[in-house]
């Protein structure tokens, strides 16, 4: 009886149950992944369907907000969000990148780096509402700034610091050690080596990280609820004047607004936020891709 080897029935049975289990598992795993995509698609779809008409109405984008009657616009909220993002980035990039340089270039694995990493990890786990409480207690009350742009920016800077540090450190560590040795070998000092070779090579990575941080700043609301006004008819005129950013204002519109078209405004604000964040993600993806595609010359 050549060929057909006699396989005992029991092991043949066990073989088939394993086979079916495998296909079932594959189907389930495919389903789980597709559910995630479906959820994302339906959320983005719903927001755009509901909000696009509102967002592209110039009166909405450029109009003045209304406290009581309908037809309010969101221009001051957009401006506040932009000023807030600029101010936060101006505070956080030097400190975050500076800290990353220290961690990647100067400090080896020492007690200090472990301490800084622990600090960064704990900051990254603190819920954003607790950052809101902290911002209220320190910047708004203790420093007496009152709810304003600077209080919001300082709070968001601390909230996003760990992320900026991590992405910048990864970008710095990705720069080949041979560049450092070559530069030092020519008699350059450590700081010259960092400034002239390492940093320029890491800039694309740092910039991509920075753009993702901008997305997080625009989307943050819990940390701003107590540190900035939720509703203001004017954009901030100075660092310490108040203005409502768009994300916290969306929460205000959902929970406290009394204008008859509050629902429509909420749809518009949600769509505006999502479009801004989608655009930022695309820009970050595009920059990262373009940089990998050609090992570009840097600085």
């Amino acid at each position, binding site marked *: 009886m050549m060929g057909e080897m006699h396989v005992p029935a029991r092991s043949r049975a066990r073989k088939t149950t394993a086979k079916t289990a495998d296909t079932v598992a594959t189907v389930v795993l495919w389903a*789980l992944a597709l559910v995630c995509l479906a959820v994302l698609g339906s959320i983005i779809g719903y927001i755009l369907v509901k909000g696009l008409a509102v967002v592209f109405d110039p009166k909405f984008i450029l109009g003045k907000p209304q406290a009581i009657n309908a037809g309010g616009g969101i221009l001051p909220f957009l401006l506040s969000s932009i000023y807030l993002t600029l101010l936060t980035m101006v505070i956080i990039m030097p400190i*975050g990148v500076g800290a990353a340089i220290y961690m990647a270039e100067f400090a080896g694995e020492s007690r200090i780096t472990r301490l800084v990493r*622990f600090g960064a990890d704990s900051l990254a786990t603190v819920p954003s509402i607790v950052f809101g409480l902290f911002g209220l207690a320190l910047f708004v009350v203790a420093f007496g700034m009152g709810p304003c742009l600077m209080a919001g920016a300082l709070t968001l800077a601390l909230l996003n610091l760990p992320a900026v540090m991590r992405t910048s450190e990864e970008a710095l560590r990705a720069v080949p050690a041979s560049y450092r040795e070559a530069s030092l070998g020519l008699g350059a000092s450590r700081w010259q080596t960092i400034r002239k070779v390492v940093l320029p090579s890491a800039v694309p990575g740092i910039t991509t990280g920075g753009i993702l941080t901008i997305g997080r700043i625009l989307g943050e609301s819990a940390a701003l609820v107590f540190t900035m006004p939720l509703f203001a008819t004017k954009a901030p005129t100075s660092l310490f004047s108040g203005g409502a950013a768009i994300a916290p204002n969306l929460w205000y519109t959902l929970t406290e607004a009394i204008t008859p078209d509050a629902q429509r405004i909420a749809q518009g604000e949600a769509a505006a936020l999502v479009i801004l964040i989608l655009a930022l993600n695309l820009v970050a993806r595009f920059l990262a891709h373009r940089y990998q595609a050609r090992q570009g010359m840097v600085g």
Partner: protein
Amino acid sequence: MTRRDAAAVAKPALNSEWIVRKTLFVFAMTTVLGIILVIFFVARESIPALRQVGWSNIFLSATWNPNVSNPATGHYGLLVPLAGTLAATLGGIIIGGPLAIGTAIFLTQIAPPRTGKLVVRGIELLAGIPSVIFGWIGLVVLVPMLARVTNTQGYGILAASFILGIMIIPTVTTIAKDALETVPEEYKQASFGMGATRWQTIYKVILPSAKEGLLVALILGIGRAIGETMAVQLVIGNARQFPNSLTSVTSTLTSRIVTDMGESTGAFRSALFVQGLVLLIMAMVIILLIRLVTRKTVKAA
């Protein structure tokens, strides 16, 4: 002036190098300073309530009935929001956990390159969506749907769990994917070599050896869910009763803080800071848990 002299003049004095190093050190220490400041100020603002209203009335009482005109005489028990937070987080992990871990397994073991890339892009986008938008979707879509399906008011633990389940997917999937990718290729080859099916290889070889990473992913997911404010506040109903059923309306620590902080003063406001302190302590516990889990693997490796 020969080039050598010009060079001598321009050579950076040693101390400028030292100054740069010191400033960068100070920048690095801002994280440590930051977490100390956060803990200090949240704790400091909690003291008035703890002193005026007393520990037991806050940590052991379930009645939350602030008195606006005379704050010190109000009831500020946080057991209800604490229970709400735990219930919503548990619900979130039950829904989001399997979804996220499953997707991570899919991405690392099964996904064809193109679909894999698409799912990863999708997860990144999901991470980018602000939590207030999740809240809005919850309020406008999920709550009415649940109201019809469960014939209740729609708000409550179930709605919060769905929203949190979706929101923790990016965090858990990314970390779980990294953990699964660190499993050495040889394990997989060996298992396949013995005629095991892909699923047997996954649950017999790959999952056990990535156990710690997956645990860390879930713990971080829990941390993310506990800290969520805006999305939860909009769908949980903010009632002051214990979550006794899936569809019962309740409140969480975060929703209590953001709902009441606006007009609170004195002991009422300070009681909300106490809830902030509890959230902070939970975050620290999560950090220690993760260090415990990762240190175990480091010792074992």
